[in-house]
């Protein structure tokens, strides 16, 4: 399929915030008018939970939250026999720098998500699901809360889902400003009313999760796709994308491009098509310097990799990760030391403080980069920037500490000369026109 022939499925009817900062929401009547909840109705009537699970497994759907774990396989990890209730948590804590892909679903298509949650809950025999939304997403929290009420009133949710013998309640839970709560086990603690400290694994949440019960955590975009998969079948989903990355994806493109935005495309799109064809290319006709392809937690790439596929395997072959598929574009005027310093300030702020290597390491890295950018770096700093990550990677409870090393290590790998220049000149050699606010 040619890229231009692809019609958005998740973002169908969604308004871009550039056109309208308070875009309309598709409430239940509008959603039903275009066939909403018919798939759920049909599934409850004609499919067993196992058949729904099989469809998702056969579709090849992989998690859209960053790790890309096969959704059907994850569901399969639930204990086959357990007296404990099973919980489903929808991860709507979208906080990865660069990512803004779940926002339009939460704010504008809440019922598409609710139908996906209902189908998934049916598949895994869950009767209580949670949507954990980051605290800064005020509008998303309001919309989802109201949409859940609508679904209750319409009999979609409640003791008898669409009149069938299946109960489901969905609780919208607001976070309060902690990136770490996007980490699945920290999210569970946050829902339980605790600080968002990640848990040691094993046991994995599928065995011991929320309130000690078997729990599945899936991203907003993942769950929103379940409806289409059950409606049209796994083969339909597999007709998009690649063998290993089936289906389509919302790509957030931001930074130095002409048309930043969310673009939904099949997963066989290349980085070049995404940046040049969809996002209008580098702004101001400047040359491309680097791309962070999957949110700030993945290795940055140089333009050499522009023809790589924006699929899980395509990014892996390029030496990085697809992550949240949030593409941050850096043009030739961007100072890499400045950019890496910015990202490390984020991780330093967001480290939860539980593990020493991450808590201290992110702080050290930030302070070194900060003094380097301000002209006070020394030769030894270059060694430290490599030595500190070696003490962090693989030595923490969760992936945050490792993620924080990605900007540093990839920046050094591709742009070491820039770091050296900051030290030799005793100042930042870039003019940084993008700092200006007009």
């Amino acid at each position, binding site marked *: 399929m040619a890229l231009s022939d692809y019609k958005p499925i998740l973002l169908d009817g969604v308004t871009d915030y550039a056109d309208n900062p308070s875009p309309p929401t598709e409430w239940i009547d509008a959603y039903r008018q275009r066939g909403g909840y018919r798939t759920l109705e049909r599934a409850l009537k004609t499919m067993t939970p196992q058949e729904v699970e099989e469809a998702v497994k056969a579709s090849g759907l992989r998690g859209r939250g960053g790790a890309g774990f096969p959704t059907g396989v994850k569901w399969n990890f639930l204990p086959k026999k357990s007296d404990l209730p099973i919980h489903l948590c929808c991860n709507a804590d979208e906080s990865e720098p660069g990512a803004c892909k779940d926002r339009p679903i939460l704010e504008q298509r809440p019922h598409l998500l609710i139908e996906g949650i209902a189908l998934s809950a049916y598949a895994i025999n869950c009767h209580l699901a949670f949507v954990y939304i980051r605290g800064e997403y005020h509008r998303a929290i309001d919309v989802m809360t109201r949409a859940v009420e609508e679904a209750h009133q319409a009999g979609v949710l409640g003791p008898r889902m669409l009149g069938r013998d299946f109960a489901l309640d969905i609780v919208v839970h607001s976070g*309060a400003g902690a990136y770490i709560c996007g980490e699945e086990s920290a999210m569970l603690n946050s829902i339980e009313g605790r600080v968002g400290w990640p848990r040691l694994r094993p046991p994995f949440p599928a065995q011991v999760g929320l309130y000690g019960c078997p729990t599945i955590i899936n991203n907003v975009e993942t769950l929103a796709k379940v409806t289409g998969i059950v409606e049209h079948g796994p083969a339909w989903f597999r007709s998009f994308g690649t063998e290993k990355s089936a289906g389509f994806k919302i790509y957030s493109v931001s930074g130095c491009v002409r048309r930043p935005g969310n673009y939904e495309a099949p997963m066989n799109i290349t980085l070049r098509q995404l940046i040049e064809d969809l996002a209008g290319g580098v702004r101001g006709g400047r040359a491309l310097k680097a791309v962070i392809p999957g949110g700030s937690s993945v290795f940055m790439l140089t333009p050499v990799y522009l023809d790589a596929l924006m699929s899980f395997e395509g990014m892996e072959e390029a030496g990085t990760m697809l992550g949240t598929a949030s593409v941050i574009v850096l043009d030739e005027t961007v100072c890499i030391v400045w950019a890496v310093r910015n990202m490390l300030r984020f991780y330093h702020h967001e480290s939860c403080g539980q593990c020493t290597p991450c808590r201290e390491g992110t702080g050290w890295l930030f302070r070194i980069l900060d003094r380097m950018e301000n002209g006070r770096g020394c030769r030894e700093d270059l060694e430290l920037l490599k030595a500190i990550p070696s003490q962090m990677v693989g030595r923490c409870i969760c992936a945050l500490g490792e993620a924080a090393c990605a900007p540093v290590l990839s920046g050094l790998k591709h742009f070491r000369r820039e770091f050296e220049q900051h030290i030799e000149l005793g100042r930042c050699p870039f003019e940084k026109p993008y700092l200006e606010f007009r």
Partner: protein
Amino acid sequence: MGWAVDVTTPHYLSIERRKWLDQLARRYPARRSVALPAVWAVQQEWGYIAPAAMEEIAEVVGITPAEVRELVTFYSMFREKPVGRSVLGVCGTLSCALCGGEGLLKYLQEKLGIKPGETTADGLFSIEVVMCLGACAWAPAMLVNDQLRVLLTRAKVDAILEKCRTDGAQ
């Protein structure tokens, strides 16, 4: 005794709020889960969480005041001090910074004469730096209380500040 606070009398959490929390608690398997909603409820009404409010929340939720304080200090959106009527939460992360985000922060500081974490003397404005607002494709962005404002320019910021000022006069 130093504990002069009567936590059984509703002050920070009204009777209505307590009823709402009780109802909400029934949807969760454990009452402790309403800890964050309870802190949010106090902050929405009072603007910040005073030490006495922590004791009251603890009483209502069924945890210790220290555990409430742990939540308030861990989650960066919770505040222990009063703030201005309009809180400007400027995104400080990379995508915004590539589109004038640092300049936006500087512009606000110059216009209002305060730094991040401070409040204007008239109590109208506070500035905060927020770690990524999830508005990366519409940069630069900031939150004005709970309203997201995107694709900001000097002209837009001027209008926003003006509106914040006049809204208060009414």
